[in-house]
C-alpha cells in the first residue's frame, strides 16, 4: 500500500493504492487519490478508462482487489458501508430516479426511511427546491413527466437531502440538451461553491470538467495519466496521450464552455 502522498486537512475520501480487475483485465491500476472538504475533482478520460469504477469503489458498490478505500478516515467495510453511503450523494446520468415514485417521493425516500419528522422533511425539501431552482409545482409529477433537466435536478436534490459530505456525479449532464446543459452547469457550479462539500464529477468532456473543477484527473485504461489543473494539462502534458485527448476534445467543441472558467 502506497503512503499518502499529499496529506491534506479533513480528507473526506481517500483511495490508497486501490485497484480493481475484472475477468483478468485491469479496470483500475493501483490508485492514490484524496479529496478534501470544499474541493471539486474532475475525473476525465475516454469511456472504459476507469472513471466510474472509482465512483463505485467510493460508494462501496465495488470492493478493491488490493489497497483501501477510506471514508472520513475509516476504511469502508460491510459494517459501515451503509452509514457511509448515507453521507454520500450519488447522481447518475438522467438522474437514476425511481419511476414509481413522484419527484418529491424520490427526494424524500431516505429521510422517510430514517424516520425524519414531516416538518423537517418539508423544510429540507423547500431548501433544496430553492437551491436547485426546481419548479415546486412539479414535485408531485412522476419522472416520466419531467424534462431531462428537471430529472437531473431531482436527482441532485435526492443526493443532497441528507446533507452528505461527499457528492459523486457520474456524467450528470450526459443526457441533457445543450441549452439546458449550459444553464445546469452554471447552477451546479454555484451549488458546489455554496455547499463547501467534497465533490467528484465524472465526465468525458474536458471543458465541462475544467468548468467544475480546478483539479483534474485524466485516466486511460485504468491508469492515471496526469493530475493537475487544465493549464498543467495544456502546457505540460505528461504523455503524448494528454495532447491527443485535448486536441480531440477541441475539435469536438466549437465553442468550449470552459472559456468561462
Amino acid at each position, binding site marked *: 500500500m502506497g503512503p499518502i502522498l499529499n496529506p491534506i486537512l479533513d480528507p473526506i475520501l481517500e483511495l490508497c493504492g486501490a485497484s480493481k480487475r475484472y475477468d483478468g483485465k485491469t479496470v483500475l491500476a493501483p490508485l492514490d487519490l484524496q479529496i478534501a472538504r470544499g474541493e471539486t475533482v474532475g475525473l476525465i478520460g475516454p469511456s472504459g478508462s476507469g472513471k466510474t469504477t472509482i465512483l463505485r469503489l467510493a460508494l462501496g458498490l465495488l470492493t478493491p482487489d488490493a489497497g483501501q478505500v477510506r471514508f472520513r478516515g475509516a476504511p469502508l467495510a460491510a459494517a459501515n458501508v*451503509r452509514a457511509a453511503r448515507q453521507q454520500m450523494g450519488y447522481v447518475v446520468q438522467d438522474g437514476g*430516479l*425511481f419511476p414509481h415514485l413522484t419527484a418529491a417521493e424520490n427526494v424524500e425516500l431516505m429521510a422517510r426511511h430514517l424516520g425524519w419528522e414531516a416538518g423537517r422533511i418539508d423544510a429540507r425539501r423547500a431548501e433544496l427546491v430553492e437551491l436547485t431552482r426546481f419548479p415546486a409545482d412539479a414535485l408531485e409529477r412522476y419522472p416520466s413527466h419531467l424534462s431531462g433537466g428537471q430529472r437531473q435536478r431531482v436527482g441532485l436534490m*435526492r443526493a443532497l437531502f441528507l446533507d452528505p459530505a461527499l457528492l459523486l456525479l457520474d456524467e450528470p449532464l450526459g443526457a441533457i440538451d445543450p441549452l439546458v446543459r449550459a444553464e445546469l452547469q452554471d447552477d451546479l457550479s454555484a451549488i458546489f461553491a455554496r455547499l463547501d462539500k467534497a465533490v467528484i464529477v465524472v465526465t468525458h468532456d474536458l471543458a465541462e470538467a475544467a468548468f467544475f473543477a480546478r483539479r483534474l484527473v485524466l485516466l486511460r485504461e485504468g491508469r492515471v495519466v496526469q493530475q493537475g489543473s487544465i493549464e498543467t494539462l495544456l502546457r505540460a502534458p505528461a504523455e503524448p496521450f494528454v495532447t491527443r485527448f485535448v486536441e480531440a476534445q477541441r475539435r469536438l467543441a466549437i465553442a468550449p464552455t470552459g472559456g468561462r472558467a
Partner: protein
Amino acid sequence: MTRPAALALLALVALGGGAAAAAPPLRVGSKAFAESVILGEAAGLLAASTGVPVEDRRALGGTRLCWDALASGALDLYPEYTGTLREEILKDQGAPADLEGLRAALTARGFGFIGPLGFDNRYALAMPEAVAARLDIRAISDLARHPELRVGLSNEFMRRRDGWPGLAARYALSEGRAQGLDHELAIRGLAAGDLEVTDIYSTDAEIARDGLRVLTDDRGYFPRYQAILLYRRDAAARWPAAFAVLGRLAGQIDDATMLRLNARVKIDKIPERTVAADFLAERLGVRTAHADEPRWRAFWRRAREHLALCSVSLLAAILCALPLGILSARRPRLGQLVLAAVGVVQTIPSLALLVFMIPLLGIGAWPATAALFLYSLLPIVRNTHAGLTGIPGPLRESAEALGLPRRAILWRIELPLAFGTILAGIQSAAVINIGTATLGALVGAGGFGQPIFAGIRLDDVSLILEGAIPASLLALAVQALFDLLERLFVPKGLRANPR
C-alpha cells in the same frame, strides 16, 4: 399477515375442507359413468336406510382413481366389474379367473365384494330387433349364415386383442367383412338402416332406446364383466348391519334391469339418485329418504366449492411462490433450479397429478387444492423472477448507493417496480386455476366440473353448459378483477398514462 387476511384464509380453508366429522362416515364412491353412479347411489341409499352415516363420493375420475382411493382408505365401497379386477387392477398378480379365486385374492389384501349383482357389462354384438327377428338371429354364431349383413364396429373394438379379430376367429366369421367407425356413428347407422350389426356394451341405454337385440355369446368368447360392490373389509367390520343389508343387492340386477335403469338416466334424464331410490323401493321394498338438491342451491354449492378450491390454492401458491421468485432472482443458480422444478410440475398432466395426490390426501377438496396449488406456482414464480431481474441495473445501484438496506430496497423499490409483472403472473395462475379446478370433480372435490362431467356421461349438453358457462364467467370475472387491481395498485408512474 394482517388479521383480516388471516381470517379470510381460515374461512376459505373451512369452506374448502368441509367440516371434518368426528366419526368418519361410510364413504361410497362410483366411477364417472351413469351405470356406476346408479349402483353407487343404490348402495349409499341402502346403507343409509340402516342409519349409517354415508358420504357420497360419486362420479370419480376412473378405475385407477377409485381403486387407489379404496386402497388408501379414502373410499370404503364402490361398484366394480370382475373383468376390470382381472384385466386391470390385479393384472400383475395373476388374478384367478373364477369368482371364488378372485374373492380369496381380494380377502388376502383386505378387500371383499358383494355380489355378483346379476348383470354383466361387457362387449356384445347387437342388431336392430326387427332385422334380427326377420332373419331369426339370436346368437353370434347365427351371423355365419348371413354374410350379407353389414357389420360396422367401433374403432377401439376393431383393434382390441379381445375384440373383433379374436371374435371373428372364434365364430369363423370373415374378418374382412367388418368396417371400423365411430361408435356413435355406428349406432346411428344401425337406426338409419346403413348397418345391421355393431358392437355395444351389454347394458348400454341405446339397446332399449333403439330397440336392439343383443346376440348371445354362445361360444363364450367375451370375458365376463360381472358387476360387484367392492369394499374394504375394515369398513364391513365397522358397520356389519349396513353390509348385511347391502348383501341383499346380490343377484338383484340382471342385464335387462340394469339396461332399464341406464335408460331412465340417460334417455329419460332422471337423476341417478331418483332412479336408484325407485329401484330399491320396487325391488327390495326399501323406502329411502332422498331429496334432490334444488337447482339454485346446487349452483351456489358448486360456486362455493369452486371458489374455495381456486382461492385457497392460489393464496397458498402466492405465499410460497413470491419468496421462491425473490430467492431465484437473488441467487441465479438456485433460481434456475427452482424455475426448472416448478416447470416440471407444470408438465404433469392434471389428471395424473390428481391421481398422485389420492394416496397422500385422499379424495375430495384437498387433493384438488394441492394439485391447483402446484400448477399455480410456475406463473407466479416465473413472473416474480422476471419482474425483479428486469429492473434496470442502474436503478438498483441507485437504491443501494442511497444506503437503503436490502430489505427496504426489496419493499420500497424492487417489489413496487416488479408489481405489475407479478400481478400478471398471479392473474394467469388464477384464470388457469378456474379452468383446471373443473377437473376437481373427478376426485370428488365438487365445483362447476361436476355438472360438466355429469353432462358428458349423460350426453346432456345443457348439463355441461350448467358447469361450463359459470366457470367461464368466473374466469372472466377474475380476469376483470385483476385488471381492476392493476389499475388501483400498480404505481402510477409505471403506467403509460398516469392520471
